[in-house]
């Protein structure tokens, strides 16, 4: 998951390294570091904003390592959903229990259906739906799409997923 964190460093040499080392040692991926040297806090510390990706279970370790080394953690927030996707389903969407279809995604814990547009032309005619899905990362989005395809197959629904635009 991606974490954004505000920390405060003492204004003595070597402090930034104290903050960055635990992230790299725990195999985190540092995305940005903004060092506000000009904006000293009333406590005389220097505010720094970090954004990094790290496995969920390692976040608390990082925070305690910071605190042990005297790096103040002012705020740690998780940017939960990084990936936004859309997918179309065609078929008897309502009658094959749409609640269950959505629950299958929502119950993964890593992806959620956040929007649903539905078009039902006539009774007996297949319906069409566009689902918007948020997921915590690319891999999770792919997993959610695969899960949705499996569910759709069981329910005889046609799924139209986006092309992979990553390499373009």
């Amino acid at each position: 998951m991606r974490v954004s964190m505000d920390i405060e460093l003492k204004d003595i040499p070597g402090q930034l390294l104290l903050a960055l080392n635990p992230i790299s040692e725990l195999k985190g991926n540092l995305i940005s570091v903004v060092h506000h040297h000009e904006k000293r806090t009333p406590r005389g510390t220097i505010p720094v904003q970090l954004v990094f990706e790290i496995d969920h279970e390692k976040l608390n370790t990082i925070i305690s390592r910071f605190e042990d080394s005297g790096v103040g953690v002012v705020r740690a927030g998780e940017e939960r959903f990084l990936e936004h996707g859309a997918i179309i389903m065609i078929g008897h969407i309502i009658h094959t229990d749409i609640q269950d279809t959505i629950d299958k995604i929502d119950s993964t814990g890593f992806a959620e259906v956040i929007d649903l547009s539905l078009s039902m032309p006539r009774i007996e005619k297949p319906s069409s739906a566009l689902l918007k899905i948020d997921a915590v990362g690319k891999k999770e989005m792919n997993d959610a799409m695969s899960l949705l395809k499996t569910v759709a197959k069981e329910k005889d629904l046609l799924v139209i997923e986006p092309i992979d635009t990553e390499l373009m």
Partner: protein
Amino acid sequence: MKTIRASIIGFGAVGQGVAEVLLQKDENLKNIGLDIKVVAVADSKGAAIDPNGVDLSKVLIKKRTEGTVGSEKLTGLEVITNIDHELVIETTPTDIDTGGVGLPNMLAAFEHGRDVVTSNKGPLALKYRELAEIAKENGSNFKFEATVGGAMPIINLIRDVLAGNDIISIEGILNGTCNYILTRMMEEQASYEQMLAESQELGIAETDPTYDVEGIDAACKLVILANSIFDMDATYKNVDVTGITKITPESLMLAQDDGFVVKLIGEVKKDLIRVGPRLVPVGHPLAVGGTLNVASVQTDLAGTVTITGRGAGSIETASAIISDVISIYR
């Protein structure tokens, strides 16, 4: 001047297109030192044979007025086996279940040391490896640009122009009929059935459209790419295929509201060959309309290269065939 004795086996739209292009481009070919002398033309009913060169304009007229190319009672296979020539232009109809007459034709051509240029997908989608091996054993050239994407160059683009690149994936629209139907459904907010009927009226879809609309044609083309570019040993039965028949106009409107078009996309990469309807962002290079074909080739060195062009039509397909012929003998 190099004289190449050739046969045209199969004289439907593509075979006739080849004959027309050979007539039209005779001078251009001679300017680059090639004299393509067609010594035999065969269709399903008969053959026209002349060791000094068949008069292609006469054969074209005869085919259009009498429904066959000539009175000689020789099959294509007999022409290939018995008449001395270097190049077989194989343009018989695609049969995806058995390979049709194309398969024995190509095998016989290689056994007699002849080169083959073809537009016929069936044999390649079923027995690519066998054909490629026999061609190699006999020192024959085997070229088939016309089998994928019509006039749109893809196989030769990858093999020649992009030589040295590792190919990561190829994805694109490889069936013009499906592209036309989907494009029109979106434009008119009309049903699949209505737009299929329109494309049948315009001659874009066949009377029996199964082969196109169920994604089989696109799957065959992908298999040819998988085998010839990715060195797989696949047949079209290995392809995960979904066609366009269940697509509703409502789904296209929903896609459009969210900035997408729906296209039948074929995709081949290591361990994956699939055809199915996919959401393509509006403005993306793959979002071409009408009957156009398009392919994006992802490479390690050159990045992504995208080509688009006419995927069908007799002259367009003949263009790919002539280009293959020239590349062999130039």
